[in-house]
């Protein structure tokens, strides 16, 4: 098949008479250029839509709103952590906007008036960590990352590059509030996802 094609081309070349080499080169270059443009065009038309998620989410991080989590009384003030779902009033996912949906969960630990929130997502690769009351620490059931009760990496062999991610909290009207965020996994720095 390919052989007969090139034969055809040969005969074409001969039959279409060319004045100069330069002129022929121009014809060849134009042919390649036009064909390439036609071939690339459909892909080029889709580039922006493929890159849309990159464009949408870059730029400045919008102010993270405060979200109500739980009455303070649900937290023992001895620092023992408890897990809470975070119900966000508005979550956008492409063409759907959800109202009041659980968007994730956190561990809250209270000492007096101070509440610390630890993200449930392991900073290693994003599995959900468990609090282990027996050893009073956090453990990721995927790749065995361990974290101290203060969220720090305590074991040298723990694969996580940083401690558990904390988020801003406050106590207002006897409720715990949180600025719920997710962070980029598996880097030493804690950078909010955006």
């Amino acid at each position, binding site marked *: 098949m390919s052989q007969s094609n090139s034969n055809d081309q040969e005969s074409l070349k001969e039959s279409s008479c060319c004045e100069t080499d330069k002129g022929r080169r121009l014809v060849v270059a134009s042919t390649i250029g036009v064909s390439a443009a036609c071939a690339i065009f459909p892909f080029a038309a889709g580039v922006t839509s493929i*890159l849309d998620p990159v464009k949408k989410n870059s730029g400045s991080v919008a102010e993270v709103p405060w979200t109500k989590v739980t009455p303070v009384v649900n937290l023992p003030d001895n620092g023992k952590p408890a897990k809470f779902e975070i119900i966000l009033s508005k979550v956008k996912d492409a063409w*759907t906007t959800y109202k009041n949906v*659980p968007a994730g969960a956190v561990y809250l630990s209270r000492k007096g008036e101070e509440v610390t929130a630890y993200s449930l997502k392991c900073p290693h*690769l994003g599995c959900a960590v468990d609090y282990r*009351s027996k050893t009073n620490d956090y453990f990721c059931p995927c790749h065995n990352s361990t974290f101290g009760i203060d969220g720090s990496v305590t074991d040298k062999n723990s694969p996580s590059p940083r401690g558990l991610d904390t988020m801003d909290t406050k106590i207002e009207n006897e409720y715990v509030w949180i600025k719920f965020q997710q962070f980029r996994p598996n880097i030493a720095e804690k950078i909010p996802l955006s």
Partner: protein
Amino acid sequence: MNKFLDWLDDRSGIRSIVKEALYEKVPGGARWRYVWGSCLTFAFFTQVVTGTLLWMSYSPSAQTAWESVYFIQYQMWGGWFLRGVHHYMAQAMIVLLVLHLMQVMIDGAYRAPRELNFWFGIALMGVTLALSLTGYLLPWDQKGYWATAVATNLIAEVPLIGPVLQKIVVGGVEYGHQTITRFFALHAGILPATLIGLVVVHIYLFRKHGIHVKEPRPKRDSYFWPDQILKDGVACLAVLLAVVFLTLFFKGAPLGPPADPSNEFPARPEWYFLFLFQLLKYVPAFWGAVIIPIVLGLLILIQPFIGSSTKGHQFNVGFWWCLLAGSAGLTFLAFSEDRENVNHIAAVEEAEWQANRVIQIAQEDGIPPTGAVTLLREDRENRGRRIFASQCSSCHRYNGHDGRGYLVSDEQSAPELAGFASVNWTTKLLNYDHYVSSEYFGGTAFKDGTMAKKVLKKYDDEEKKLLPDVARLLSDLAELPYQEQLSEDEKESLLDIYYDDLACIDCHDIDSEGEGSAPDLTGYGSRKWMIDFINNPEHERFYGKKNDRMPAYGRDKKLSEEEIEIVVDWIRSKPGEF
């Protein structure tokens, strides 16, 4: 017929094409060791056909992906079989890939002049693995969701463009609609198209150089048709039977509970990626996902050149055996670690429970447009056990666990509540040995209270015989949905024991005005009694000042009214496992 074929051949040259395809020479005769390529082609063909048929019913979005797969699995005529074949054939493909690769390595068929074809083969392996990875997410169940979360986080490890690349693949920052649509486009469009392109060149190159014959040649030369094709066909049939067997044995492919970012799941990839999963426990992700694959990949690419000497060839074959053995070892470690991990086992069982539950509700009530995930979130039974686990289980137990099947590491310090107020439960309660055991009040101050020390312990044998009757009376007050109510006459006679023989009434009121020194048992264990009790156990009707650590969930707003009702209904819904 012949006339038609002549006509067709004249216009298309079909005869020479077919002849060229079928009468390929097989030096040394047809052999079983050459079947793997054909098996892979057959497997891929099956995937294209079954995949396209699944596509006819699959709907990629966060509210419809799981739901449409559920429909295929549980509502569509034979849908479970179709999906099962697609699922297990994908796994068979991985096994066949390894067999094909090892045959090529051992026979030395990767060496000159077949280097280029070897590289195409390696590329095909990569595309096949990518197909598996992208297919895994499409049902949008917990397993796919959390495992893919890990996999896409690994993309971010690619230097410089990693985070941007991750966003492009995931379709944003969070997983959602766009993740599914993009993965689906990859899985059903881009990757299969790439695979077909690569396979065409792979087979063309294979034909160009012919079969690489493993010496010594066992027989005389023969042709592809029919000798080798018969062997290939038999091997394909064996693959088919294995896949059908797996599909029937496991009743199709599994479908976990719908994806829920607020409901954790112990992410595990499919078994053929477990070695990589296990590796990530030991090495940083950058090594596991970038450096090691690149180094191994480069080494594999130059293997045709390494293999030009006999020593080099031996090295290559040894290298692949080591790679296989290493992967098998890591896979074994991953399996055995999980098998010994009680928490992991409980998490898998919990996910199974959720899957069964949501499927049951979907079958009974149907799925609303908001998706199946809301069925579970709103399900009172699911909420009941979760409230119990988070609020009650650090002191109480439910059949010895936390309500969902997880073992609790804290010491049990309050009564077992599975089958609370049932005849069995109450009979045991009134037995002194049980009363002071950790299963009941052994972990509380009541262990040394009046009821234990001055009442139950002091009963003589005659009185002890009456206690099961009191238990029947009390349990009747609970009006539990799974127990039959006593007749009026029976109740009367039991009340006699309560009032006169054992004089329980001296401390515990039932339907009376006076204020006993111990909890009021009017309507004991009934829905209202339990709600009031959990609302405030320190109320005078109940423990009053004698309350030992039981929080006043309603009074202190630790639980909403609705939540208390849900957990009460849940506890009352089933007998305990005595």
